[in-house]
């Protein structure tokens, strides 16, 4: 008897202490999110910039959505789905009883209206912009989608011309948020500043370059929202934004100066978050030019470049040295790959074996603009220049204005060029096929600026593209990364993890690799 009560007490204590660690979320309060730029527009189908998606994510839901911490797909407005044997017909079963913010019902007809608006150029509401992401992800208008159908009130079907492996990942992108057809018709060209969706927050006001105000949707179908209000403020200067975080006029600040990160670590009122990377910065070696057609040379260069030092010096340590083209937050990442270690002696040996014992001379192209994946192209090029000089490769650093740079690299005029990529849909295809498949090595419009053409890789990537079985696709992409590693078309340099500062009382905030996280579960502990 006594024993039992002791056990019971212990169990009770355990339960209490567990409950203490996972505090119950509190309702109420306003969260002010400070960022560097304003949104371009709030019609997600017609924008491509991250600052727009940060806000539209809060207003619109997608049929399927990403997990909070990575790019795996989970149910959204559709609670389940299935796909036909041939991978061409996708059926989505929609949640019932959801209403748009304007009170109109969410159903299969509404989804159909949105799809047809995106995919048909002659649709009366295909207006207000270029619908760039639809064209980009589905290969034109209507592209790979043949037609769509509202089977019954809560069943929606998409018929594809070809199977499309990344289909679900595409649909989870914020640009395919489902909007109220009534509102689209009502506002026409001005829909981008009168957004109406189904998600946790309702649009209230937008003062351009100043603030966007959203309020809680108390009828939200998912968890939360806990906040009463959510305000996005644009504060362009990094230092000014950080002072505002310290002063408490904003609660979260992204786009911090690396120097300010130390202050956050030391301040008990602030908490540092690192956004998981969805990008890659790389050095592409153009295989249309000698001696980069020689794999030994490419491997030698991989051994010669000290990525750790570059990350430390030019990314202020806020990045992971890369060993794959894929960032680790994307599913299918192959962590078994053994990176080419920094070893100048080995590099020299490989060069000798390749027939260049005294090295050679080549051009090294440096990006003229800072990008999240490449904060300072010029300085990184100089570091690489120094590393390569050690093994006898002399390089001339070349640069152009950004437009010309892109044009010339796509045309393959470079020997070696720095460039990078930020993922769109968190699907491995969006990195591996876009950047390294032979289909995309066309002179003049190449995404694959290494002009790397491997039939073996192509076969895997196409197979993965046509499969809708995620397990099978994962295996194919694992293998693809091994081939890429062997052939070494690039020196993958880094995946940057941008820092975010927040007040310590902000709870349950999880930055998403796509840089547009839903804030419905965030709450304030104050």
């Amino acid at each position, binding site marked *: 008897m006594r024993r039992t009560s002791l056990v019971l007490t212990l169990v009770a204590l355990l339960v209490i202490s567990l409950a203490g660690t996972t505090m119950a979320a509190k309702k109420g309060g306003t969260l002010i999110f400070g960022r560097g730029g304003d949104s371009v527009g709030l019609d997600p189908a017609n924008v491509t910039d991250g600052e727009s998606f940060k806000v539209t994510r809060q207003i619109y839901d997608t049929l399927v959505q990403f997990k909070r911490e990575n790019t795996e797909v989970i149910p959204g407005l559709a609670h389940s789905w299935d796909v036909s044997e041939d991978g061409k017909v996708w059926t989505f079963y929609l949640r019932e009883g959801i209403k748009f913010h304007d009170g109109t019902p969410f159903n299969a007809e509404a989804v159909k209206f949105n799809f047809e608006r995106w995919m048909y150029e002659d649709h009366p509401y295909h207006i207000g912009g270029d619908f760039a992401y639809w*064209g980009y992800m589905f290969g034109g208008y209507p592209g790979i989608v043949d037609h769509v159908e509202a089977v019954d009130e809560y069943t929606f079907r998409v018929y594809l011309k070809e199977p499309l492996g990344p289909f679900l990942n595409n649909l989870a992108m914020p640009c395919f948020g489902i909007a109220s057809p009534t509102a689209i018709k009502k506002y026409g060209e001005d829909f981008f500043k009168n957004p109406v969706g189904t998600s946790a927050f309702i649009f209230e006001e937008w003062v351009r370059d100043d603030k966007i105000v959203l309020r809680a949707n108390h009828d939200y179908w998912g968890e939360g929202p806990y906040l009463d209000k959510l305000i996005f403020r644009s504060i362009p200067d990094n230092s000014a934004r950080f002072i505002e975080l310290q002063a408490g006029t904003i609660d979260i600040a992204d786009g911090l100066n690396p120097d300010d990160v130390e202050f956050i670590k030391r301040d008990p009122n602030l908490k540092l978050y690192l956004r998981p990377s969805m990008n890659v910065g790389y050095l592409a070696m153009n295989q249309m030019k000698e001696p980069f057609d020689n794999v030994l040379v490419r491997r030698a260069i991989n051994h010669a470049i000290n990525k750790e030092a570059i990350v430390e010096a030019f990314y202020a340590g806020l990045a992971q040295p890369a060993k794959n083209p894929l960032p680790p937050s994307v599913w299918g990442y192959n962590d078994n790959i053994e990176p080419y270690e920094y070893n100048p002696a080995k590099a020299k040996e490989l060069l000798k074996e390749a027939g260049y014992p005294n090295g050679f001379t080549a051009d090294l192209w440096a990006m003229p603009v800072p990008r999240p994946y490449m904060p300072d192209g010029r300085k990184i090029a100089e570091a690489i220049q120094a590393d390569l000089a050690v093994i006898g490769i002399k390089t001339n650093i070349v640069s152009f204005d950004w437009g010309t740079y892109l044009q010339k690299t796509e045309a393959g005029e470079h020997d070696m060029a720095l460039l990078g990529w930020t993922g769109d849909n968190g699907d491995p295809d969006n990195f591996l096929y876009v950047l390294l498949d032979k289909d995309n090595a066309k002179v003049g*419009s190449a995404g694959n600026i290494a002009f790397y053409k491997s039939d073996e890789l192509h076969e895997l990537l196409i197979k993965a593209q046509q499969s809708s079985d995620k397990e099978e696709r994962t295996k194919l992409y694992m293998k693809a990364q091994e081939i890429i590693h062997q052939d070494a078309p690039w020196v993958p340099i880094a995946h940057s993890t941008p820092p975010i500062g927040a007040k310590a009382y902000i709870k349950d905030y999880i930055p998403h690799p796509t840089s547009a996280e839903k804030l419905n579960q965030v709450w304030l502990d104050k």
Partner: protein
Amino acid sequence: MGQYILKRLALVIPVLIGVTLFAFLLIHLIPGDPARIILGERATEAQLEQIRERLGLNDPLYIQYLNFLKRLAQGDLGRSAISNNPVTAELKKRYPATIELTLAAMLLAIIVGVPAGIISASKQYSLFDHISMVLALLGVSMPIFWLGLMLIWVGSLVLGIFPPSGRLGVEITLQSITNFHIIDSIITGNWVALKDALWHLVLPGLALGTIPMAIIARMTRSSMLEVLKQDYIRTARAKGVSQRLVIYKHALRNALIPVVTVVGLQFGLLLGGAVLTETIFSWPGVGRLIYDAIMARDFPVVQSTILVIATTFVFINLLVDITYAYLDPRIKYN
């Protein structure tokens, strides 16, 4: 006087035509294909073509220019190439923000600058003169970026008195009528918003006003000193007119002519050039609009905004000229 104004107005027309040509050509002088810059890394050939077509970049230059003029004549400033937002509507909101800030800055600059210059001149080589001229030198050479950050740091973080940025606190709502927050809050009797708007003007006003303040102080001083050396001043003094009267009645009016020029020029400059201040203080004005548009190669916005700023500048100059004629009736157009 009336004829003078008419003649000056007639001169404005060729200048404005020049401005349209300049605004139009400027963007074509920047290297790089704008469509490619707008689309960045993920451009496909079809999308590039789509954007070139929409921006009318495939037409010959003179056709593009004529189309531009045609739209202008209809009062249409076009739509942003990036956001599709109409430029006219955007400027209606941005210009009041910039004008409000500029007025606050100029007010500060004149209220402090002119008296400081007058006192310095009337007490040349005094301690006051030395101190104010050293401060003025500092003011002229102050990097606004640094000054702005220091003001935010001291004013809002250390002292905790002033809001660090923006035009209005996020929790304050104000009905927009003219988009001038001060005027709107007075019309609607929203005193909370009025106080908040004024409060928000202090730090950016100081940052933006410092350089003109210093220039005005130095200009007033040197112009005053010159006038004070003139014969008629000596005569006035010989007549036994008091120092006060000599300075404020006889000298000041003449000394003000170059000061008015400086004030006018500075005002015009600030209206279009408050990019740094607007950026640091997150002020949603014209300076930031044009800066963002240039960075994004947003042709229509850059062209229209340059045009509007230049036109404003031209008309401010006209006003300055008219003020001359008022201050000194001897000035005539010839």
